[in-house]
């Protein structure tokens, strides 16, 4: 297309990236927060005490509830509390459906000690925030999947073309030169991309794999054909469900679940039971499948299958059924990081932030490159250019502000307010809309400084808000060694400080730029020269040291 291969790929990287950059930024940022979804859940329901019940107690509570509410269900599911991913006892059941349609499904969180359903304030929590990164919001999930999927495909192409066009990918791997204007931004973009390249590739590719059955459904149809029967056959093969017997229709008493759990724990060790999946409870053909905790990226875990009526151990299923399936499951597991301990979880979070920043710097580079030429234009910058510039500011800084607004809404909306969980999310999007409009009313340099200060306040004051509205302030949390709460507060504070630092640096830069511009204004009219935050005044020191 262009004269050389590299130039063509560079064109594709630039324009492909720009087209979907804002959606990708949204996806990466909300997805990154998803690595701490359970912690955010906890912070957003400050009334709930941590669960301490053991597995036997949790089991009897769950069984009692399910017998009470879900007699005759097709399926029960119990996930006992204990680890980070399941802080509370969760039960799920599905009633039989009529004429081919699936019946109603119910999910409940229970207090394992008292058996009450967990109350606490209504909130979207970390889950709703995390869910947006693949299903978006205010639209049917299927449309969200497709939009995110198309953008992810762009991302995959952008990463590969990015590798192709980066001439000195190994030579420049540790290279970042500050205070060099556009050069610094390119350095930073490269550094962010290359240092976490394995993560970027893995997260984009595995993100696509999550919905491969949606995106590439034609490949499935090519082998299995179209229609409901084909779909069922495929599902049976793919999820290896064919060996499950159907319900017999004869009633039978359930064998003791606790005995089955005891057998599972003797196989795997205490605390290793992740879930109990019960097909046709109360039927003579009932099957109880017990799954093990995840301890590696492989997303499937070994399972033990019991006869639900007799309690007899029928089969031990290994985690790996076939090589291609193991590759698929490993990528999904790598994406979700459910196996990650706290240290690894922070690394995931950090890598996610690097990815988010990579997208942000990429979009900024597009506008910085064109800025000098645009400022020279007789009638002022083009509409398209101004739009990109405003969207950049309104998204890169605006979205974090909007997410902070989500947390503010969680503490400030009245606890008994009916549409509370929905309104938390409405607050996020209303604030985001304002931050998208704000750059249109202010000069872009001022806009950046203002919004960075706003973001600093929005995050930095969250611990204070938490202290004013709940009993669980930072000092209490630390003295009670409640690290989920203390960690969340401290993270908010750190983000606030980082934004304040960026705001302060940018303001200093703007001042210097204005001074040098007014000094040179004898010939030209003094248009502000925009010097982005990374271009700093360390240069003089740097020069004496390096030369």
């Amino acid at each position, binding site marked *: *297309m*262009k*004269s050389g291969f590299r130039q063509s790929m560079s*064109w594709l990287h630039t324009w492909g990236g720009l087209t979907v950059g804002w959606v990708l930024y949204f996806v990466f940022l909300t997805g990154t927060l998803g690595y701490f979804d359970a912690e955010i859940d906890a912070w957003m329901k400050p009334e709930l005490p941590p669960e301490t019940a053991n597995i036997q107690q949790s089991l009897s509570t769950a069984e009692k509830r399910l017998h009470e509410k879900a007699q005759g269900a097709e399926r029960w599911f119990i996930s006992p509390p204990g680890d980070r991913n399941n802080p509370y006892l969760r039960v799920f059941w599905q009633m039989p459906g009529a004429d081919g349609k699936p019946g109603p499904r119910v999910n409940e969180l229970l207090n394992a000690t008292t058996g009450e359903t967990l109350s606490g304030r209504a909130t979207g929590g970390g889950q709703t925030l995390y869910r947006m990164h693949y299903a978006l919001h205010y639209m049917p999930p299927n449309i969200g999947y497709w939009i995110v999927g198309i953008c992810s495909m762009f991302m995959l192409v952008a990463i590969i073309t990015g590798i192709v066009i980066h001439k000195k990918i190994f030579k420049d791997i540790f290279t970042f030169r500050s205070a060099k204007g556009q050069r610094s931004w390119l350095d930073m973009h490269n550094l962010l991309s290359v240092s976490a390249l394995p993560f970027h590739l893995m997260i984009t590719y595995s993100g696509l794999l999550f919905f491969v059955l949606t995106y590439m459904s034609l490949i*499935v149809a*090519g082998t299995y054909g179209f229609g409901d029967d084909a779909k069922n056959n495929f599902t049976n093969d793919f999820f290896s469900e064919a060996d499950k017997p159907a319900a017999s229709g004869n009633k039978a008493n359930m064998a003791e679940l606790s005995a089955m759990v005891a057998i599972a724990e003797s196989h795997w060790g205490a605390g290793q039971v992740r879930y109990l999946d019960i097909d046709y409870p109360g039927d003579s053909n009932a099957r109880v499948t017990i799954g093990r905790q995840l301890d590696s990226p492989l997303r499937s875990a070994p399972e033990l299958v019991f006869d639900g009526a007799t309690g007899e151990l029928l089969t031990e299923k290994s985690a790996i059924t076939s090589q*291609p*399936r193991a590759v698929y499951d490993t990528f999904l597991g790598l994406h979700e990081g459910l196996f990650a301990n706290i240290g690894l979880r922070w690394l995931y979070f950090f890598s996610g932030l690097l990815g988010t920043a990579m997208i942000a710097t990429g979009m900024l580079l597009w506008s910085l490159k064109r800025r000098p030429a645009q400022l020279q234009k007789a009638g002022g910058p083009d509409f398209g250019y101004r739009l990109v510039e405003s969207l950049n500011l309104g998204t890169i800084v605006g979205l974090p502000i909007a997410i902070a607004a989500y947390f503010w809404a969680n503490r400030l909306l009245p606890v008994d307010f009916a549409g509370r969980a929905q309104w938390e999310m409405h607050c996020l999007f209303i604030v985001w809309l304002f931050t998208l409009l704000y750059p249109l009313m202010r000069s872009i340099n001022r806009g950046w400084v203002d919004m960075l200060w706003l973001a600093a306040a929005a995050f930095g004051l969250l611990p204070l808000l938490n202290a004013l509205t709940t009993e669980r302030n930072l000092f209490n949390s630390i003295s009670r060694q409640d690290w989920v709460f203390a960690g969340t507060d401290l993270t908010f504070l750190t983000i606030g400080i980082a934004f304040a630092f960026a705001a302060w640096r940018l303001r200093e830069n703007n001042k210097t730029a204005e001074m040098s511009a007014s000094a040179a204004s004898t010939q030209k009219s003094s248009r502000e020269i925009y010097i982005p935050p990374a271009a700093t005044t360390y240069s003089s020191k740097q020069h004496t040291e390096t030369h």
Partner: protein
Amino acid sequence: MKPMTKTLPSESRYRWQITWRIVTAIFGGFALANTSGILLTYLLPMNKIDALTTSMLLSFGIYAGAVMWVFSHRSLFKSLAGIWIPASVFFAIIVVFKLIGVAP
């Protein structure tokens, strides 16, 4: 390079080129990823579901490769033909396989 300095006809020709390429990259790439995926499922020496999983795993790579192909060649014809011709051929083979009963 510099489209600014070129005359208007070549500017509009450039736009048409880009449009064709984008359409081919998105839809042609998708068609190629799917047809080659189906064909791979038939040809891979594994059981049905493993072959299917493998070709689904590979399909995004094929798609990404196709997109890069479309934008990497100077000649518009070469870029477009390199996608649509194999996609059509693969589709024809799939249909033939189905008709003679080789494919499931």
